């Protein structure tokens, strides 16, 4: 059998740090990048005698997630303790949700295909260990330092059903998930900073089979691109393994970005038994109708609906709509520009073209640019009322991207306004023709090919004479009137 005769099956487990002001069970600040062990207290350090108190904002964020992904949110859900020893986990158990999650049985649409999401549950993050000496690896380190700032930071674990079959589909799922989580304001979803972490369960089976193969869990992908590469590598690895008579084993595999391979992590003796049991220090989570209403009200337009609206109202392509919605802040900018009076299609062209190119080139974010929706709308008007040619408008936009200037001011400053006056332009044409009698002669006697060439030359001269500001349509007409 070849790779084409196998079907890959994958499910994704996504951990998202919630952007609440404080941690899950205490009042400590939830903040990335503070000095080690500064955002800590007896509760998130799990000191003897301390007790957790659930942050209501986390529940509200979970309810938003419930709403956005069509989950069932039961009347009551409970926390469990997941017991295992780990030095960066202060209590040596993680307070998490187990068989009674706050969100159950939701879905997400990726390119028209519905991907089931089994569950989403609340849990606490762990601290972070760094190993000092011996090259920073645990087994030869002199000692280890633990920073508990992240301990107790609220996480949602979002577990898809094993319903994806290609790396592209998996990337699409994560991209859509990320867009929605950002749109509903619950997380800053940065894979690179670890506020969004994706693990992939990958298995293969012969095409047509409906039983699931043994899966490997792939970890350590820190971008969408590496997620795609890791999945593709893993599928090939499994197919080759099975083809050569081997058997896939259930294990956790680590994606090595630079080598472009996954490798198995040393498996622990026996399978881990987490001895889950209901957390006795917390009461059941029972969202009230008021909390549910608040969460519903807090959700704005979701990415899919926004794309649909842009395509329908502005007449732009699905691809352009996706570009706007998936680039941070671009869709909001487009909406604001349209609200300021510009046509959606023109706005989309500028934003997905010149503006996005400039952002990519400079690495800047939209928020720090001097260009505002009002200025972009002004630029669109200058083009549509004939003041500015599209070519000159590009220059003006370039200047407005770099400096805090109005398009109108740039036009005035550089004398770029387009000339439409037929008398003024006719005089220019006459002057050019008077100095090119020979060319006119050649034009009149030449074949089609030569005529085209000579006319092009004359048009260039006319344009040059107008210093680029003559309205090309008017100039073309005036030239033709005189030549023929």
């Amino acid at each position, binding site marked *: 059998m070849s790779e084409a005769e196998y079907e890959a099956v994958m499910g994704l487990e996504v951990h998202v740090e919630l952007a609440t002001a404080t941690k899950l069970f205490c009042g400590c600040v939830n903040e990335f990048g503070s000095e080690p062990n500064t955002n800590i207290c007896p509760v998130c350090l799990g000191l003897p*005698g301390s007790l957790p108190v659930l942050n209501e904002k986390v529940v509200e964020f979970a309810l938003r997630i419930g709403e956005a992904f069509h989950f069932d949110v039961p009347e009551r859900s409970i926390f469990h303790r997941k017991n295992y020893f780990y030095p960066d986990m202060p209590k040596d158990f993680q307070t998490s949700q187990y068989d009674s999650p706050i969100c159950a049985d939701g879905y997400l649409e990726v390119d028209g295909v519905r991907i089931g999401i089994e569950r989403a549950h609340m849990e606490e993050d762990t601290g972070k260990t760094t190993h000092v000496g011996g090259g920073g690896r645990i087994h030869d380190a002199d000692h280890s330092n633990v920073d508990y700032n992240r301990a107790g930071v609220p996480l949602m674990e979002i577990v898809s059903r094993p319903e994806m079959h290609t790396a592209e589909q998996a990337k699409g799922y994560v991209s859509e998930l990320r867009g929605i989580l950002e749109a509903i304001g619950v997380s800053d979803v940065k894979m690179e900073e670890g506020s969004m972490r994706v693990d992939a369960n990958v298995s293969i089976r012969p095409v047509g089979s409906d039983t699931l193969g043994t899966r490997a869990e792939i970890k350590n992908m820190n971008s969408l691109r590496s997620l795609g590469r890791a999945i593709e590598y893993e599928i090939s690895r499994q197919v080759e393994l099975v083809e050569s008579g081997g058997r896939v084993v259930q294990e956790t595999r680590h994606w090595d970005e630079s080598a472009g391979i996954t490798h198995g992590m040393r498996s622990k003796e026996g399978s881990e038994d987490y001895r889950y049991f209901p957390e006795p220090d917390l009461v059941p989570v029972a969202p009230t109708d008021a909390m549910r209403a608040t969460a519903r009200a807090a959700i704005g337009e979701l990415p899919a609906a926004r794309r649909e609206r842009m395509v329908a109202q502005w007449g732009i392509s699905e691809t352009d709509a996706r570009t706007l919605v998936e680039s941070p802040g671009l869709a909001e900018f487009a909406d604001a520009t349209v609200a300021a009076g510009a046509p959606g299609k023109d706005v989309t062209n500028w934003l997905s073209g010149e503006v996005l190119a400039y952002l990519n080139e400079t690495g800047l974010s939209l928020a720090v640019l001097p260009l505002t929706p009002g200025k972009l709308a002004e630029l669109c008007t200058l083009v549509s009322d004939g003041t500015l040619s599209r070519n000159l408008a590009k220059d003006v936009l370039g200047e407005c991207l770099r400096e805090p200037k109005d398009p109108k001011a740039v036009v005035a400053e550089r004398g770029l306004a387009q000339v439409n006056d037929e008398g003024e332009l006719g005089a220019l044409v006459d002057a050019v023709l008077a100095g090119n009698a020979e060319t006119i002669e050649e034009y009149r006697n030449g074949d089609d090919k030569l005529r085209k060439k000579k006319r092009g030359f004359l048009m260039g001269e006319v344009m040059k004479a107008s210093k680029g500001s003559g309205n090309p349509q008017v100039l073309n007409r005036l030239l033709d009137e005189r030549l023929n």
Partner: protein
Amino acid sequence: MSGAPETALDIAASVRSGERSARSVVDDHLATIAARDGEIHACNAVLDDQARAAADAIDAAVARGEDPGPLAGVPVALKDNLCTRGIPTTCSSRILEGWLPPYTATVVQRVTDAGGIPIAKTNLDEFAMGSSTENSAFGVTRNPRDLTRVSGGSSGGSAAAVAAGYAPLALGSDTGGSIRQPAALCGVVGVKPTYGLVSRYGLIAFASSLDQIGPFANTVDDAALMLETIWGHDPMDSTSITGAPAPLAGGADVAGLRIGIVEELTDVEGIAPEVRAAVGRAASALEAAGATVDRVSVPSCTYGLSAYYLIAPAEASSNLARYDGVRYGLRVDGEDVADMNARTRAAGFGPEVKRRIMLGTYALSAGYYDAYYGKAQKVRTLIIRDFAAAYERFDVLLSPTAPTEAFPIGEKTADPLAMYLSDVCTIPTNLAGHAAMTVPFGVGGEGLPVGVQVLAPALGEPVMFRAARALEAAAPR
């Protein structure tokens, strides 16, 4: 000692009125501790300096015309599993060696806010696991009434401290009887409040769904004073009950009160005949005071002990995981982190704690959960249902507190099961989350104190205290 020990109510009244200084109260009690604790060993630490400083502050407040509060100048002994900021809190375990809590338990804060003066941290069975205080890493606490006998446990130090006059009030914690059983054995009043009535914030957990803090006192009214000081909602404890509890005033009138003697906790093997007889005399006394008395069956109580010894160790196995040598307390170095964890725990925990951690770990293991932990939780539901049925017919229930008088030191240390049976009468209340208290009611065949237990439904403290006052009034002197 001459006559009845001074009550907390008397001390507070005299200190508030300026008749007596808090400093002299504290000095007197410190003198008693100094004289007796060498042989009793109820204290892990005596807070001489802090207590004197606190007393001076109270006296200064009185001198300024301020009211220091209802516990003004009253010495209070604290079980050494209650966190006290900057003062060692050991749980009588080697594993917490050197740990200084950076915060104070809610109940201790409420005691000091009311003018009470912490005077000692008292001994306990390690992590509150035991019924005799013999499991303490720092040695046994002897019974002040007979130094060859145990003080009970796990709050043996607090019970002995009150019985020996170290302080008129003490705090303990009760997971399966750890306040009531030692109170009975030492001849004092001990209360296990309704689960959630008193904040657990700052109580070092043994079994979170069962643990509850409560008072020890020489009189029922003193116990009420202490309970009213420490109870009430605490935003730091999610399981703490919201809303104001009903006050405990209300005298000793039991006329018309319906009282049931729980057959499964009274008429069973292992209860000493003199203890059973004391319960009978107590019931008669209440009847004479106008109550009606009948016997009642609460069938599932029979399974209480078995369910308890699955649920409590299961929760303990998780609660005690954090003592791993990484962040605080004892650390014994090892080859790697896992080895360091193992060596630290092997050296830091005593045999009973290890036994319960293993029991609990096993009860929660994959494949055994349903048969053990799951089934124990079902028993718990049954016990709640059976008590609910009993409380439809009765206002309060009666039973022995402990099966016997205080037993000789060393008698049960080799036989854990015999030791576990010491709590057979008290455990069902913890499983149900209800209230219960013990009141001294005469002596047994060996001349040592016997306690009678009054049980009440959740938040039934007011009626429970009324019955307790009536018993106290009728108790043989």
